[in-house]
């Protein structure tokens, strides 16, 4: 079944380069993790998604 909703999340990039995000979908997590590989928490979020997808 296709969702009735547009999948949505929001990302805010501040002038100092800091990135804020909410409603992070797995796809956004993958992008943010690639943008900032040092961000441990985002890496964990992206990894959880991959692990779940591979179940």
């Amino acid at each position, binding site marked *: *079944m296709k969702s009735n*909703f547009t999948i949505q999340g929001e990302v805010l990039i501040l002038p100092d380069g800091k990135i804020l995000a909410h409603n992070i979908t*797995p796809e956004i997590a993958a992008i943010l993790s690639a943008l900032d590989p040092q961000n441990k928490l985002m890496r964990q979020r992206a990894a*959880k998604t991959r692990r779940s997808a591979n179940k």
Partner: protein
Amino acid sequence: MICDFPTRSSRGDEALTFSYLKTNESPHVVSCKAERGRAFAASLRAKIARASLADCKLCAHECGVNRLIGEQGLCHAGATANIFSAQIEVSDELELIPTFAIALSGCDLRCSFCITGKESWNPRAGKNLNLPALAERAVQALDEGARTIMILGGEPTIHLPTALEIVAALPDEPKLVWKTNAHASAQARELLHGIFDVWLADYKFGNDTCAQRLALVPNYNQIVQENLLWANENSELIVRHLVMPGHVECCWRPIAEWLGENLPQVKINLRSGFWPAWQAGKHSELRGTTTSLETDLATKIARDYNLNLVE
């Protein structure tokens, strides 16, 4: 007494009394049928919750309006709920994600900085609920690897009948998360008893002056604390606090102190990603983001009170 039912934990085995029971089932019949599981219990309670909209006291504002005939309380919600998002997300606590997050439009608070202000302040935002399709999508999400199903808002308490109807349409097994502002009434808590595995509750303001100024809510701390203590007794509880610029000392410190004294083992998620959204600009201190100094101070305060921090 309504729908006592066995849960996977030891909770949920006490009798519940509802003076406003309005289903056609006798309490005895309801109780006897309750062994049929969470979905069945939720379907019975949904009927009670829907009947209670005639004198709505689901949130702590307890407006007492008749939502069944179109009267509106402070949340402006009607008798039906709209949904503005239903998708797999990984924003929440690591132990809960991926989650299938179902967001209901409308809220009983008026947080000027609400990151979903457009949908949270307007219960008619989003789309009409298609319950069978939503349940099908939720099951599909579980198949795709979602670990939990989360019902949130806005604030889901104001749509308790719908939230329970959603639970009634789901399988009994998935872990269910109730993401809430912890501003529920005692009546709502009774209806929620034993239904959700995890209460993920926001504790936003550490003093009632800030709560009134930023969210137009009176007597905030007493109500939230009542809800948190109840949730901790009756489910797993995770408390969130979003660090707000200029509010570390006036809001976070008293919250941390209270949590340290009253809920010392509870998981606390200190969120640092304040985003000056919606009408935050009405308040000068909320026009920017939190500084690293504020984030560091907030973390130090959490450690000073030995809080059990999670991410």
